[in-house]
C-alpha cells in the first residue's frame, strides 16, 4: 500500500505534467520544476522502503503476473532511478536557461515543445526502469524512442533532422525485432513477466531465436558496434540538453533491459560463447569509438564517439558477470561505470553546449582557443568529466574500471584487462586534445555571449558527481545487492 504512491508519482507525475505542458505551453517550465520535485520525493521514499523492507513489488490492477503487469523496485531499478532522477533534474535546470523565447522565435518554438517531450521521455524512462513485463517494456521502449527522436528534431537543422529520421528507422526496426522475440517467448512460456520467465524458460531452439532477436534489437538501440552508426550524428546534432539526456540515459534504457533479460529472465539459457561475443563487440566498440573520437573535427561529435566507446565497456559486463569468479564484482563494476559515465557524459555535453553556444554555434575543436578563460567553469567541468572517462581516481570511472579489472583477473579473463587499459589511454588522448586547444590563449578575444551561470554550474555539479563517485561506490554496491539476480551470487559464496 505505502509504495503505491511512489510508483505512481514516478511514472504518472511526469506523464500528467507532460499533458498539461502540452495544453498550457506557458506553464511548461513550472510543470517540469514541480515534476522534478515530485519524482525526487518519490525516489527518496522508494529508496527508504527498499533499504528497510527489501524489494518492492506493485501489482498494477491488482491482478499480478502472469495476467497483469507488475512494477518492481529492486536494487538495480533504484540504482538506475537514482541516475535518472539526478540527471533529469540537472538537465531540467539547464534547459530552463538554454531555451529562451526572448532570444528568437525559433527558440520560443523549441521551448514550447521541449517541455512536454522532455517530460514524456522522463516518464518513459521511469516506466521502463520499474517494469517487469517484457511486452510493457516494448511499449516503454517505443515511448522512449519516439520522444528521443523528436527531441533531436527540435534542433531544426538539416543535420539534426536527418539524424533523427535515421534514428527513428533504426529504432522502429529494432523494436519490431524485439517484439517478435516477445511473441515467441509468450507462446513458449505463456507469460511475459520477467520473474515468471526465470522459472518457466526451458532451453530450446525457439527460445534461443527469441533471445537472439530481442538481444539484436536492443543492441542496435544501445548502439553497440556494428549497430552504432546512428548514434554520433544523432547525439552530436541535438540541442545540448537533449544530447545529455540521450547519451546519459536513453541508450542505457535498452542496455538495462538486456541486463534484465540475460541475468534475470534467461540466465540458464545463456552460453559463455554468447557472453564472449558481446564482450568482444564491446571491446571493439571501446577501441573503434575512441579512435574515431580522436580524429573528429567537431567537439560534439568527439563527445558522441566517446559515448560509443564508453558504452563498449558496459558490455564487458556480460562475459565477466558470467565467469567462474567475481560475478557480482563485475556486475557492480559495470553498473558503477554506467552511473559515472551517465553523469560524466551529461556534464560533457552540457559544458560543450555552453562553449558552443557562447561561440554562436561553432564547435570545431581547432577553434576552441580561449575556452579556458572565457568559460572557465565549463572548461573545468569538461576536464573533470574527462577524468572520469579516463578513469582516474577518485572518479566513478575509476571505481567501475577497477571492479571490472578485479573481476577480469578473478575470472582468469585477462584479455579484457588489456582492452580496458588501452581504452583509458585513448580516452586520455581525446580529452587532452580538447583541453590543449581549450587552454590555448585566444589570439583575439572571442565573441562575448555569456551563458547563464545556472547552465555553467549545472554542468559542473554533474562533473563533480562523476569525479567523486568513487567515494560513493561502496554505498552503490550495497544498493545493487538488494534483490540482485541469483545467478550473480554463487551458492559457494564467492561474492565479495
Amino acid at each position, binding site marked *: 500500500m505505502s509504495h503505491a504512491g511512489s510508483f505512481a508519482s514516478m511514472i504518472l507525475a511526469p506523464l500528467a505534467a507532460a499533458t498539461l505542458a502540452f495544453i498550457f505551453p506557458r506553464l511548461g517550465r513550472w510543470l517540469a520544476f514541480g515534476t522534478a520535485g515530485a519524482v525526487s520525493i518519490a525516489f527518496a521514499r522508494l529508496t527508504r522502503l527498499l533499504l528497510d523492507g527489501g524489494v518492492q513489488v506493485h501489482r498494477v490492477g491488482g491482478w499480478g503476473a502472469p495476467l497483469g503487469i507488475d512494477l518492481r523496485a529492486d536494487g538495480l531499478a533504484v540504482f538506475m532511478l537514482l541516475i535518472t532522477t539526478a540527471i533529469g533534474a540537472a538537465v531540467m535546470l539547464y534547459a530552463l536557461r538554454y531555451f529562451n523565447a526572448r532570444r528568437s522565435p525559433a527558440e520560443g518554438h523549441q521551448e514550447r515543445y521541449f517541455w512536454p517531450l522532455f517530460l514524456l521521455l522522463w516518464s518513459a524512462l521511469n516506466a521502463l526502469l520499474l517494469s517487469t513485463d517484457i511486452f510493457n517494456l516494448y511499449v516503454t521502449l517505443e515511448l522512449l524512442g519516439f520522444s528521443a527522436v523528436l527531441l533531436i528534431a527540435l534542433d531544426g537543422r538539416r543535420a539534426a533532422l536527418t539524424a533523427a529520421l535515421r534514428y527513428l528507422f533504426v529504432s522502429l526496426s529494432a523494436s519490431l525485432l524485439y517484439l517478435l522475440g516477445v511473441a*515467441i517467448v509468450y507462446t513458449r512460456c505463456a507469460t511475459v513477466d520477467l520473474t515468471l520467465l526465470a522459472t518457466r524458460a526451458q532451453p530450446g531452439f525457439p527460445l534461443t531465436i527469441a533471445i537472439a532477436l530481442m538481444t539484436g534489437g536492443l543492441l542496435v538501440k544501445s548502439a553497440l558496434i556494428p549497430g552504432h552508426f546512428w548514434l554520433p*550524428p544523432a547525439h552530436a546534432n541535438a540541442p545540448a540538453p537533449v544530447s545529455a539526456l540521450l547519451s546519459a540515459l536513453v541508450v542505457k534504457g535498452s542496455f538495462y533491459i538486456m541486463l534484465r533479460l540475460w541475468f534475470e529472465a534467461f540466465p540458464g539459457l545463456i552460453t559463455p560463447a554468447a557472453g564472449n561475443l558481446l564482450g568482444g563487440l564491446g571491446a571493439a566498440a571501446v577501441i573503434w569509438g575512441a579512435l574515431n573520437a580522436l580524429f573528429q573535427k567537431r567537439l560534439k561529435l568527439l563527445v558522441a564517439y566517446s559515448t560509443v566507446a564508453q558504452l563498449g565497456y558496459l558490455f564487458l559486463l556480460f562475459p565477466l558477470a558470467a565467469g567462474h569468479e567475481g560475478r557480482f564484482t563485475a556486475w557492480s563494476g559495470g553498473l558503477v561505470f554506467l552511473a559515472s559515465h551517465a553523469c560524466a557524459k551529461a556534464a560533457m555535453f552540457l559544458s560543450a553546449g555552453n562553449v558552443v553556444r557562447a561561440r554562436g*554555434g561553432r564547435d570545431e575543436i581547432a577553434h576552441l582557443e580561449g575556452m579556458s578563460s572565457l568559460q572557465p567553469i565549463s572548461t573545468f567541468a569538461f576536464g573533470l568529466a574527462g577524468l572520469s572517462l579516463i578513469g582516474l581516481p577518485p572518479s566513478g570511472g575509476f571505481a567501475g574500471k577497477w571492479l571490472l579489472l578485479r573481476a577480469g583477473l578473478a575470472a582468469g579473463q585477462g584479455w579484457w584487462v588489456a582492452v580496458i587499459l588501452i581504452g583509458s589511454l585513448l580516452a586520455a588522448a581525446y580529452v587532452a586534445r580538447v583541453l590543449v586547444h581549450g587552454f590555448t590563449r585566444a589570439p583575439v578575444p572571442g565573441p562575448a555571449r555569456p551563458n547563464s551561470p545556472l547552465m555553467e554550474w549545472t554542468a559542473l555539479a554533474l562533473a563533480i558527481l562523476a569525479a567523486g563517485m568513487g567515494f560513493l561506490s561502496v554505498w552503490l554496491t550495497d544498493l545493487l545487492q538488494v534483490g540482485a539476480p541469483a545467478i550473480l551470487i554463487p551458492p559457494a559464496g564467492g561474492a565479495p
Partner: protein
Amino acid sequence: MMYFDDRLYLIAGAALITIGLYALLAHRHFLRRILALNVMGSGVFMVLITYSARTAGSIPDPVPHAMVITGIVVSICATGLALVLAECVQALTGRTELSDERETSEHTGARPDTSDEQHQDQSP
C-alpha cells in the same frame, strides 16, 4: 470451430517479416522504408495472432489480441511521425533518401544559429 493450418500462417508471417526487412535494408526512399516497417509489423502481428488462435478451446487467447491492437496503434503513430519527419527532411535537403553517413558526420564549417538552413517556420 473452423479448421485452419497454423503452419501456413506462421510461414506467411515469417515471409512478411523477411520481405519487410529486405526492403528496409535494400531501399532508401523514405516512403518505402515506412511501408517496409509496416509490412514487418504486420508479419509480427500475424505470428502473435496465429499463436493465439491455436488454442484448442472455443475462444482464442485474448492477451495477444490486446497486444496486437496496442501494436497497431503504436505503428500508426510511428508511421505518422516518420512521414512528417521525412517530409521535413525532404523540404530541407530536397532529397527523398537519407544521405550517406559520411556526409552527415563530416558536416564541417560554421553552423550559424539562424542560418536559412533553420527549418522551423516561425518567421511571420
